[in-house]
């Protein structure tokens, strides 16, 4: 009986938590279909805000920028982050394992400001390049952590076995290690991609004049009031994020469970 009661508590707690997380998002999504210029009261169903959104050149350009930046920064961080993850697993230096967590745990504001100061210090012109570098900097940590946790349960002797059975160090890495950790690599890469598409704070500090991303464009639209067009743009970002997150979870269940 006791366990039954407990499981009910957990069930209701779980449902409440999910409602708490998702009600604001659900409201936002619903109002993107609302036939009214202001977000107060339901008037009727429409898709016109999506039409407006897709005809808005600025938003579309910002979206393409976001995707390009995300693609470039996550590609770079997949390579560097994988190497970092493998090294962290192999050499097990406690300080480095803690340091790799810092960009994940540190307040974005701090990371943004420090990157801005750094770019100014080295006289680096702010623009798309600086955004990509900034996104790469925090994405590497996510990939490294995903790869490291994937390797945690791995049998280390498979690399020795590959060498023993005739593989050169490069072949052992490429034919044995990489396929084994691939789910971690992909999961980390998808995380990096999503985070880059969604990022506002760090991008805000590192973007130059004229370079804009989707979150920045939405923010500037908000200055003129929250129109349902913003809701429509947000809905698309949420769905996109949800897709990537579910692929990542599917590929590497042990990392996210």
């Amino acid at each position, binding site marked *: 009986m006791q366990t039954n009661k407990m499981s009910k508590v957990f069930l209701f707690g779980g449902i409440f938590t999910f409602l708490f997380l998702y009600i604001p998002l659900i409201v936002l999504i619903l109002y993107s279909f609302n036939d009214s210029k202001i977000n107060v009261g339901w008037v009727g169903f429409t898709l016109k805000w999506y039409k407006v959104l897709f005809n808005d050149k600025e938003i579309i350009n910002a979206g393409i920028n976001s995707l390009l930046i995300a693609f470039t920064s996550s590609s770079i961080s997949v390579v560097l982050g994988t190497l970092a993850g493998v090294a962290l697993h192999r050499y097990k230096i406690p300080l480095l394992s803690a340091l790799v967590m810092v960009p994940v745990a540190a307040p974005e504001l701090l990371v943004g400001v420090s990157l801005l100061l750094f770019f100014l210090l080295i006289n680096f012109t702010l623009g798309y390049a600086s955004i990509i570098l900034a996104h790469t900097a925090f994405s590497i940590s996510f990939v490294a952590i995903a790869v490291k946790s994937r390797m945690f349960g791995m049998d280390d002797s498979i690399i020795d076995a590959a*060498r*023993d059975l*005739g*593989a050169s160090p490069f072949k052992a890495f490429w034919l044995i290690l990489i396929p084994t950790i691939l789910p971690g690599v992909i999961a980390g890469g998808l995380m990096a991609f999503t985070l880059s598409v969604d990022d506002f704070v760090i991008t805000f500090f590192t973007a130059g004049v004229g370079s804009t991303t989707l979150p920045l464009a939405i923010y500037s639209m908000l200055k003129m009031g929250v129109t349902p067009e913003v809701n429509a743009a947000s809905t698309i970002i949420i769905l996109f994020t949800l897709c990537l997150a579910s692929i990542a979870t599917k590929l590497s269940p042990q990392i996210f469970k």
Partner: protein
Amino acid sequence: MAILEIKNVTKQFGGNLVVDNISIDIKKGEFFTLLGPSGCGKTTLLRMIAGLVSPDSGQILLDGVDITNLPPEKRPLHTIFQSYALFPHMTVADNIAFPLKMAKWDKSRIDAQVNELLEDVQLSQFKDRYPHEISGGQKQRVAIARSLVDRPKLLLLDEPLSALDARLREHMHMELVKLQEETGVTFVYVTHDQHEALALSSRIAVLNHGTIEQLDKPDIIYSKPKTHFVADFLGKCNLLKAEVLATTTDTVTLRVASGIEFSIKDPASSSYQIGQIGWYSLRPEKLKLSAENTFDATNLSVIKSKVNGYYYYGNDTLYELDLGNNTKLQVMAPNHTSDGVKFFVDNSEIYVAFDPEAGNFLDTSSC
């Protein structure tokens, strides 16, 4: 003729001497075992032969060729790892084909050879399964097939059976011996399990603290241990304090424990000093028990003693006897009577007899 020569090999890890100047010659076709407790250096020695660890000094020769500085992939030998180390993203057949692909064999030759090996280890119907889809025993057989597929000169086995349950392990003992005889490949086997070592090996090197305590055939290692460590590590052994009373060129007279005196043959007797203290080692199953003193005392030493306790093992019973002066004696008595077992109960008086030649003297320098 020696297929593997290990010459004065030494390895330190962080100031710790793990392998201390070891030299061994392993003959072609041998089933050679490195036996010792964990941390004795046996696995490090094996990894140096495999090329996964490089020695600080010394030489390793395979078939007369110096392989000391060859990377592992260039050595014509393979290792079976404790965890099997199957590649998780490859099927059973792909795992077995891996060494052949690395050696750049033709596709058709690879397929033929892999199929032959799959038949040898009776896994043909599992060829398309992945390692996580087969049992521990089957994984073991895949690992063996993968390591023998390109007919290496030497197979190194690092505690390969430790992950299997007891019944399967015994079954694999027989399979391994059969496989070794059929293929003729020289096996170098690492284990901490004395039963495994005794049952499988043509020769055993007992290692402790990075040095060889004794290297010989299993029956000699067991019945005539050379050092206190070997006597203690392999099976049960009575180690009784012994004093040298007299020596001739090939016999030594000892006073053992509570004053039992006898002479035994010992080729090393001339190196002993009168009055020297050492150990007399005697296996528990070499002793006989009786309630009455009905032993023939011409060849046997007979002692009166008291039963301290006993442990029933099914096929035998182990008695612990008290000889007085804080000296204990273990006796293994077979339970081969047909009318059930009659135990000697605690505190009963008992006569115990043994042939002194069944044991041997260990000088303390080897303790």
